[in-house]
Structures are given as C-alpha cells and as structure tokens.
C-alpha cells in the first residue's frame, strides 16, 4: 500500500526549542518534499530532495534545514523554533524526475510553537 508516513502528527514546542519532523515512504520514490500550509497562503515549498544527500531549497527555506540519509526517509529540522513557524507541515514524495508524477502527501504534522 503506497503511503507517506509522518511523525509526529501533533507537536507542541516552546520558542527556542529544536524541532524534528520525520517523514517516511515505502515506494522508493526518488523525490521528496516538505511543504507548510497556512490559511490563505496555500502550500509553500520549504525544501525538495532529489535523492540521498541531494537537497535543494524551496521557496521558503529560511529557518529550516533538512536531512536525507536514506531514500525512504526525509527529515525537517527547525533549530530554535519561532512562533511564526506554527503551521501544518506536509511531507510528499513522487516517483521519478518527471513533471507529470503528482506528489503523494503524508497525513501532516500540526506544529504549535508557543
């Protein structure tokens, strides 16, 4: 069953704490993404990874970094979280490096930074 799994689903952190969001997929997809979703702004691309250790900044990378050491796993790290990073974060993956393969999304992680 094709699936993108995100952990945790809900997270509450204090400002200044470090945050680790994890994403896994079991389809051997090459490309993985991290998006954040905010009302009125839609889905904004934070980072994209084309394979292990091949990561590129998306449209809003500031304040985030990523790690991809295995093809099936992609992490999003917030060093010293800020309150404006409160959002819903979605991980997604797609099969191959062609533009017609629509990304498959995980269930999302709802992060609150207090």
């Amino acid at each position: 069953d094709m699936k993108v799994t995100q952990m945790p689903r809900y997270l509450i952190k204090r400002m200044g704490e470090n945050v680790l969001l994890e994403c896994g997929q079991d389809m051997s997809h090459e490309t993985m993404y991290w998006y954040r979703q905010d009302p009125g702004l839609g889905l904004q691309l934070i980072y994209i990874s084309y394979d292990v250790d091949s990561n590129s900044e998306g449209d809003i990378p500031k304040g985030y970094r990523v790690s991809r050491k295995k093809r099936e796993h992609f992490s999003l790290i917030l060093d010293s979280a800020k309150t404006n990073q409160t959002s819903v974060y979605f991980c997604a993956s797609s099969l191959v490096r062609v533009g017609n393969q629509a990304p498959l999304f995980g269930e999302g992680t709802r992060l609150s930074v207090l």
Partner: protein
Amino acid sequence: GDSVTQTEGLVTLTEGLPVMLNCTYQTIYSNPFLFWYVQHLNESPRLLLKSFTDNKRTEHQGFHATLHKSSSSFHLQKSSAQLSDSALYYCALSERINTGNYKYVFGAGTRLKVIA
C-alpha cells in the same frame, strides 16, 4: 518562477448547482503539467485529476477540467455540487527547474462550501 492563481477565498454553493473553480497559471515552459488536488477537513491533499494535453477534457469522480494553453487556464468544474464536495481545492503546476528535476507550485487554494 512559475505561479498559479486560483479563485480567491471561499465559494459557497447550494447543493445541485454547478461548480466552477478558476485556475490560471504562468510558466515559461511550453508543455506544463497541471493538477487539481482536494483536501477535506483534517486530511491531507490528494490528487483529483491532472492534465498535460492541450484542449483535452480530463475527468475523475464527477469533476472535470480542460487545459487551455492559449489562455493558461485549467478550471475545475462539476455539473452538480454535492454536500460531500465541501473541501479545500488546490490547483498546481509542475515547474521544470533543470534537466530531470521538477518542483510543484501550488495556488493559494479555494475553499468550496456546499449547503443544502
């Protein structure tokens, strides 16, 4: 970079009326790939339909859309709205970054609310 513009905000319809959610895009690529995603409350976005062929109607689950390159549009339509269609709808475009690599650009989303 590429961009996608959707009908803004909230669209409220009475059940049984036709649905039309607008999507226009900007890209320098002559062969764009366009997508519609649907996201129900507390769920993740899931693909509704996609197209890369000019002037060809694509249908899925009662919804349809036609890519018109001449007007850079990919509007989502349905003949008769159902209460279960209430959701957030995203139009998206795949943007070619370089050879072999793409990223997906999403519009701001249109929330559809269907009332009885």
